[in-house]
């Protein structure tokens, strides 16, 4: 019997792939040679680990992986042919071991927690071996907005991975739709009451009320309707966002694309993963988890602007979405942390945002005001602010004034609003109210940024915010949906003080000048894990 823990060191990807091929062959009892054509996802996971700087693996054998055990119970255990229930885990470390013979010594004395890159679970299914996989995203690959911290126990050592869970479909219990839902659900697990659904349970929820073909094996995937059933059955609101009407007109297509990115980014900024249903030659599902952020909004497709009528003058409204270049997705048939370009490149195969028909964010069920609706409440309030701030200005100056701002909407946990107040407005009524005010568990926060400062978030944790409007997400349509409004007026007018208006109890506060403020949740870099 092979040892439960074994060490392996490698200098390049081919050596790593060769070892992974051996382990997969051992697991499945069939010889496999992993390559970039036949095992795209596994190959990309290994490449990703190598790019992270991993140079050694602790191989963990005879792992009872709970998600694969569920797949095994639902399907593989019923096969007449022998099928193993054992998985193997490959734990990646940046450190190279002094000696390969003693994995415990390596874990105790050489492997540093900071050098842990996460793990790949290999299931004993030769063609689709990548089961529950937790790899850190690394730097330079975009801003991952949806992630969490996951504890890992290995040989008596406790390690941690901060990343977004990834899984490849097993193509029997589930297809890409189930894999994408699993990834999104597992990311939200701690944040939303510790609900964990394995692929078999997701398939069960998806097909409970609507089936068009057999459930097992489920190689045909799910319809969008079944995906909505699964999302609802696992405890989230089945909120569907239409993204495309498949227009033939190029201008209309560009308009739909920029709106799609704008709608999706509201949820990504809220650290909510978004399921994207794509269609090219056939249907596919991926999960959006982040984006790349540039310093200048140069691409016309991503230049999201709106215009509002302020006392009869059409003034422009910009959103921070304009600085988002590409979405980052987990694609179960290609790999983790991949870029999703806006448009397909005719010279290359691949997916693009323009292929997305619909988006399904994992919206908590107690949020009755969707992001799209909350944006309209926020814009209504912002109009009311602009009217008075520009009352004495000529029409062209009203436009110039409104052009100074960029808006960002996100669903914010109350505790994050409170800690933001404590950290960024000490000894002011702003801090006191943010920490003590009666607020629902979550609020929609419309952040108001200085447009000229937004690009700085591409390279650093910048300060660009000069105010915000907090909106009640349980308010649906109610005159008191706006809970708190704060504006650091000295940054944008000749006023000496800023001001805050609180709805419950109805009060207003004069706030001393505070300078530029950081956003509630950083734009630069990866999001902080739930517990942080």
């Amino acid at each position, binding site marked *: 019997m092979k040892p439960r823990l074994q060490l392996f060191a490698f200098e390049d990807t081919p050596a790593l792939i060769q070892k992974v091929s051996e382990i997969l062959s051992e697991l499945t009892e069939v010889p496999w040679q992993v390559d970039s054509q036949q095992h795209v996802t596994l190959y990309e996971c290994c490449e990703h680990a190598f790019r992270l700087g991993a140079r050694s693996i602790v191989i963990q054998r005879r792992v009872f992986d709970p998600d694969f055990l569920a797949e095994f119970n639902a399907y593989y255990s019923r096969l007449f042919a022998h099928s193993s229930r054992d998985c193997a885990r490959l734990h990646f470390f940046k450190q190279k071991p002094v000696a390969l013979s003693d994995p415990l010594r390596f874990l105790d004395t050489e492997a540093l927690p900071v050098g842990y890159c996460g793990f790949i679970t290999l299931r004993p299914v030769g063609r689709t071996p990548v089961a529950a996989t937790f790899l850190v995203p690394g730097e330079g690959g975009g801003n991952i907005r949806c992630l969490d911290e996951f504890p890992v126990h290995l040989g008596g050592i406790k390690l941690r991975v901060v990343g977004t869970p990834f899984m490849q479909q097993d193509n029997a219990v589930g297809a890409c739709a189930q894999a994408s839902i699993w990834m999104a659900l597992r990311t939200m697990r701690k944040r939303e009451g510790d609900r964990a659904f394995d692929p078999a349970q997701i398939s069960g929820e998806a097909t409970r009320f609507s089936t068009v073909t057999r459930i097992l094996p489920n190689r045909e995937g799910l319809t969008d309707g079944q995906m*909505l059933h699964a999302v609802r059955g696992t405890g989230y609101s089945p909120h569907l966002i239409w993204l495309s009407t498949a227009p033939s007109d190029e201008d209309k297509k560009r308009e739909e694309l920029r709106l799609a990115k704008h709608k999706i980014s509201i949820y990504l900024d809220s650290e909510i993963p978004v399921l994207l249903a*794509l269609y090219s030659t056939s249907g596919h599902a991926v999960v959006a988890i982040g984006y790349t952020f540039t310093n200048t909004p140069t691409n016309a497709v991503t230049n999201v602007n709106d215009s509002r009528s302020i006392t009869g003058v059409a003034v422009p409204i910009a959103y921070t979405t304009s600085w988002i270049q590409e979405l980052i997705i987990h694609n179960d048939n290609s790999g983790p942390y991949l870029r999703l370009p806006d448009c397909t490149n005719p010279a290359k195969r691949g997916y693009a945002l323009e292929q997305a028909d619909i988006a399904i964010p994992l919206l908590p069920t107690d949020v009755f005001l969707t992001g799209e609706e909350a944006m309209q409440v926020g814009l209504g309030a912002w109009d009311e602010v602009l009217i008075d701030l520009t009352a004495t200005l000529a029409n062209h100056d009203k436009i110039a004034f409104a052009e100074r701002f960029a808006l960002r909407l996100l669903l914010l946990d109350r505790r994050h609003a409170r800690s933001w107040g404590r950290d960024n407005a000490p000894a002011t009524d702003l801090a006191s109210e943010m920490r003590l005010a009666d607020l629902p568990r979550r609020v929609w926060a419309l952040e108001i940024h200085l447009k000229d400062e937004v690009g700085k978030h591409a390279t650093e944790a910048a300060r660009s915010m000069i105010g915000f409007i907090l909106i009640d997400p349980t308010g649906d349509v109610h005159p008191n949906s706006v809970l708190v409004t704060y504006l650091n007026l000295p940054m944008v007018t000749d006023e000496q*003080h800023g001001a805050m208006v609180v709805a419950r109890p109805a009060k*207003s506060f*004069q706030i001393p000048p505070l300078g530029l403020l950081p956003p509630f949740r950083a734009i630069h870099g990866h999001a902080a894990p739930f517990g942080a």
Partner: protein
Amino acid sequence: MTRVTLGKLLLDTARGAQAQRTIPTEQMRELGQGIMQRAQPEIDKIREGQRKAIEEGRASILRKRRGL
């Protein structure tokens, strides 16, 4: 009498002599209604769009299978 707006309230507070003041219920209600009068038509448009999408057959998209 001029309607109370959020902007006016913010400016009055910033310029006022008091660091903190209570806003009369009537003013607050008026303020909320002003905002909702602006937001409601747009929210209705979003909801109407969702309804139309389903009525005009875009719901057939929901029968597409995602299983690549």
